[in-house]
């Protein structure tokens, strides 16, 4: 496709009043020799759009540059099909709405933004999708409990084939071990039958679902649209090909033998919730020591959970479970005394009704810290500090004590069958001040053939890492979705919702993969990283750093990209010291040219320049919001959007400093345990890379504070002026960059 550029400068929305449009046009026509340049007072209007369309049709314009509003608006109006490259120069939100009108510096800013875009076009080509042959559209669901069964049914209902793998000899998971379950239906007041039979029947009767019981996974190779899974059943193995995977292996109760301080082990009458469930399923609930039907029962909540010594988190389901079990006791004998010692009752969602019901039935809820459980020859006593009464208290002559012992995800346990080999190797690779790889606990569930390790990376407490705020089911392995209590602690009603969400994500992923598009957050993006492998030094940076484990390695240690696993964040591109990774429409030289196109005035002009790399996911929207709210900020800054701070290549900092910029500000998403980075690890990795730059700058006698990284989310838009201005002031104090003019 011949590259013919058309620049369309809009003077609507006050742009024309604030800027000298003719001078701006000269940047395009004179400086950049752009063949087509048009001006219009209302490009987003019908006639304005026609002008552009006409140029495309009759004038063979293939690269359209619209200088006007933000690319985040009017994207539907300015849509010229896939064969046209479209770039938007944001003169409105980024210049005229944040700067003084009719001012020399404002005009310089606008002209620079046009230059940045025109420079970008030099290295930009239309991407072509990476489409795999015979994209597999089946979904494998791992785990046949409530969440897994729900996902299977939902995927099948959407018209896709399902392979459901369960390691036990029958489906059901916790439902099999439950007498009844907390209500899933309105009015949410009474325990319900598990409905296990009907659920299993629905699955068995669905020809789209293939069930494997007594089966585990020996190996999962491949990538979205083409996973090859080796199943282990009995002595043998068999193969299944699928396009996406849902992990729904659930959680197990916290080990009660660690709860000796709450009386576990001291008396057979102190039991866990699971054990109490078994007793209830047998018929009359009788205490284990002598078979006496229970008349007085104490429940201890948060037994292990929300306890720094045990599980620091809330297990989320045990309050509701205890409410259910308390109702069993009341159902058996309405005169029975039931005490629930709690920290907080967390009966979220509709379960408030369930809690209220238990209260109305006379279950007594006591907000207390339990200090001890003692056995006086059959009867038990719970001693506690009643926090509402502000007094030590006790409940004695209890027949049984039930410990709400919380849950631990199945992914949290390292299978001893594993050696430590892989881990050591990872540690070696990480030695060179590189980021610490995410913990991958070898739980022997998926056994992924991924360079970074065999299971999903976890974040905390052994739960698979997933973007909690924005895309909760998206784990750090594209095409693999975690659902139910393996993802985070949750009750059954939440697990059902979760399983449905994951089913949707799996189907989306398959369809996107089939078209060669990315999944969240760059949904539909067809660009993908290209590796110029002949120049690769096998440094492993890309294979280590890709947050999604997209890159494997061949025997010789060369990176083996898997484009369908890729989320298009560009972290590999930022990591590669040889700069051999690039996208058709996003590359190291491209960004380099963009920043070099900015005019940096001489020192004596006293016009400092500060370069801002801003993440497209949150920082750019926040900057737009600042503009929409007409918040004014420093006229010395020039902003270049990046896909993710993870794509930041250090050479850009180098380029910026040698070009004479006085400072560089990086705006990205929050990182750490409660990260908001849309690519999960991108901003964290950028931070680590940056720490290396500081040394270099210091060595050159440049203040390392000239390069600074800050966290911005959309809601921070009102802080934008403060962030920018404070940085600019700080840079001002250092004085001009001594490399200016070289």
């Amino acid at each position, binding site marked *: 496709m011949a590259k013919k550029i058309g620049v369309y400068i809009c003077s609507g929305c006050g742009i024309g009043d604030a800027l000298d449009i003719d001078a701006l046009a000269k940047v395009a026509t004179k400086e950049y020799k752009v063949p087509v340049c048009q001006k219009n007072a209302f490009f987003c209007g019908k006639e304005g759009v026609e002008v552009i369309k006409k140029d495309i049709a009759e004038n063979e314009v293939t690269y359209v540059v619209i200088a006007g509003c933000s690319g985040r608006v009017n994207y539907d109006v300015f849509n010229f099909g896939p064969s046209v490259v479209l770039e938007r120069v944001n003169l409105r939100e980024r210049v005229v709405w944040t700067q003084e009108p009719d001012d020399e510096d404002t005009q310089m800013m606008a002209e620079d933004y046009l230059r940045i875009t025109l420079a970008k076009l030099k290295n930009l080509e239309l991407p072509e999708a990476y489409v795999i042959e015979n994209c597999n559209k089946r979904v494998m669901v791992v785990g046949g409990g409530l969440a897994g069964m729900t996902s299977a049914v939902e995927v099948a209902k959407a018209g896709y084939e399902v392979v459901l793998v369960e390691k036990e000899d029958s489906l059901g998971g916790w439902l099999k071990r439950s007498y009844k379950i907390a209500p899933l239906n309105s009015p949410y007041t009474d325990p319900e039958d598990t409905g296990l039979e009907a659920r299993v029947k629905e699955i068995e009767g669905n020809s789209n679902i293939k069930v494997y019981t007594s089966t585990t996974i020996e190996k999962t190779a491949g990538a979205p649209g083409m996973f090859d899974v080796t199943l282990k059943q009995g002595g043998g193995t068999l193969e299944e090909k699928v396009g996406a995977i849902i992990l729904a292996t659930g959680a197990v109760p916290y080990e009660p033998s660690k709860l000796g301080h709450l009386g576990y082990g001291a008396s057979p009458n102190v039991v866990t919730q699971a054990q109490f469930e078994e007793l209830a399923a047998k018929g009359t609930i009788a205490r284990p020591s002598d078979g006496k039907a229970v008349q007085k029962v104490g429940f201890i909540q948060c037994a292990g959970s929300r306890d720094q010594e045990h599980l620091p988190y809330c297990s989320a389901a045990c309050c509701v479970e205890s409410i259910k079990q308390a109702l069993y006791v009341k159902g058996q004998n309405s005169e029975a005394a039931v005490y629930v010692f709690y920290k907080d009752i967390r009966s979220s969602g509709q379960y408030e009704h369930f*809690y*209220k019901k238990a209260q109305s039935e006379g279950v*007594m809820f006591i*907000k207390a810290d339990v200090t001890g459980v003692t056995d006086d020859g059959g009867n038990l006593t719970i001693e506690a*500090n009643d926090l509402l009464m502000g007094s*030590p208290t*006790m409940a004695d002559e209890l027949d049984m004590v039930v410990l709400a012992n919380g849950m631990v995800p199945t992914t949290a346990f390292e299978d001893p069958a594993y050696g430590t080999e892989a881990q050591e190797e990872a540690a070696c690779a990480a030695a060179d001040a590189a980021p610490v790889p995410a913990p991958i606990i070898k739980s022997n569930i998926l056994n992924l053939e991924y360079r970074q390790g065999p299971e999903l990376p976890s974040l905390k407490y052994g739960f698979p890492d997933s973007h909690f705020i924005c895309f909760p089911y998206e784990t750090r392995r594209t095409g693999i979705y975690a659902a139910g209590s393996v993802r985070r602690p949750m009750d059954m009603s939440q697990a059902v919702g979760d399983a449905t969400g994951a089913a949707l994500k799996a189907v989306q992923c398959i369809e996107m993969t089939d078209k060669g598009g990315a999944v969240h957050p760059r949904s539909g993006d067809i660009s993908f990283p290209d590796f110029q492998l002949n120049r690769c030094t096998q440094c492993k940076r890309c294979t280590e750093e890709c947050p999604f484990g997209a890159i494997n390695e061949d025997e010789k240690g060369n990176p083996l990209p898997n484009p369908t696993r890729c989320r298009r964040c560009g972290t590999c591109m930022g990591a590669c010291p040889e700069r051999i990774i690039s996208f058709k429409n996003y590359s190291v030289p491209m960004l380099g040219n963009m920043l070099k196109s900015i005019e940096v005035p001489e020192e004596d002009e006293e016009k400092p320049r500060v370069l801002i790399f801003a993440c497209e996911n949150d920082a750019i929207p926040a900057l737009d919001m600042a503009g929409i709210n007409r918040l004014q900020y420093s006229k010395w800054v020039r902003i270049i959007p990046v896909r993710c701070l993870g794509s930041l290549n250090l050479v850009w900092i180098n380029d910026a400093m040698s070009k004479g910029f006085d400072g560089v500000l990086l705006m990205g998403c929050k990182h750490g345990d409660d990260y908001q980075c849309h690519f999960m690890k991108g901003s964290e990795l950028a931070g680590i890379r940056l720490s290396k730059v500081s040394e270099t700058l210091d060595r050159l006698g440049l203040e390392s504070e000239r390069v600074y990284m800050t966290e911005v989310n959309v809601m921070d838009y009102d802080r934008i002026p403060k962030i920018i201005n404070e940085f600019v002031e700080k840079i001002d104090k250092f004085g001009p960059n001594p490399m200016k003019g070289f």
Partner: protein
Amino acid sequence: MTGFNVSSGPLKYDTEFAREIYSLENGHHIKKCMQCGMCEVSCATRKEMDYSPRKMFLLLRTGQREEFFKSNTMWMCSTCLMCKVRCPRGVPIVDVMHDLKCYAISKGYTERAQAAFYQSFWKEIWSRGKQFEGGLMARYYLKRGWKDIRKDAFRMKDMGLTMLKHGRMPLMPPKSVKGLKDVQKLVEVAKAQLQKGADR
């Protein structure tokens, strides 16, 4: 720990007393209270109460019989309904307060000024079918005994005179309701019905 000092030694839960309270007309609602404290911050007369409604319900649930009879909470309730419209658990707090007053009176806890006032007021209604300010006052002061009456009472007298002057304090009671016998019978029958319900 700041406590209620309800007992020395560990507190024990007296479910029997709690059950008795739950059996009052609106008593079962107390069980639904989740101790959120909304009533406490909404209450018009919270600062006059020794225990807020929330704390009162806690005392009742845990069976603090003594503490309940000592408390002034229900007597301080001014029936403003704020708590009732705000309680997230739908506890009709005012109605519970009615029950607690009745219960305290029925157990002979009548020495509070409010209890005397309530009883005098009721006697007025009972004997006339209507309420008459003058009659109410007379009964009230009779019940309280003059020596108990504080300085304010004299001011109340002044107030009475002012009202008289403005034609707002009739000296003669209104005519009794003609159907007074019916009024009384209705009350008796209703009480008996309640009793029967409770016995059942």
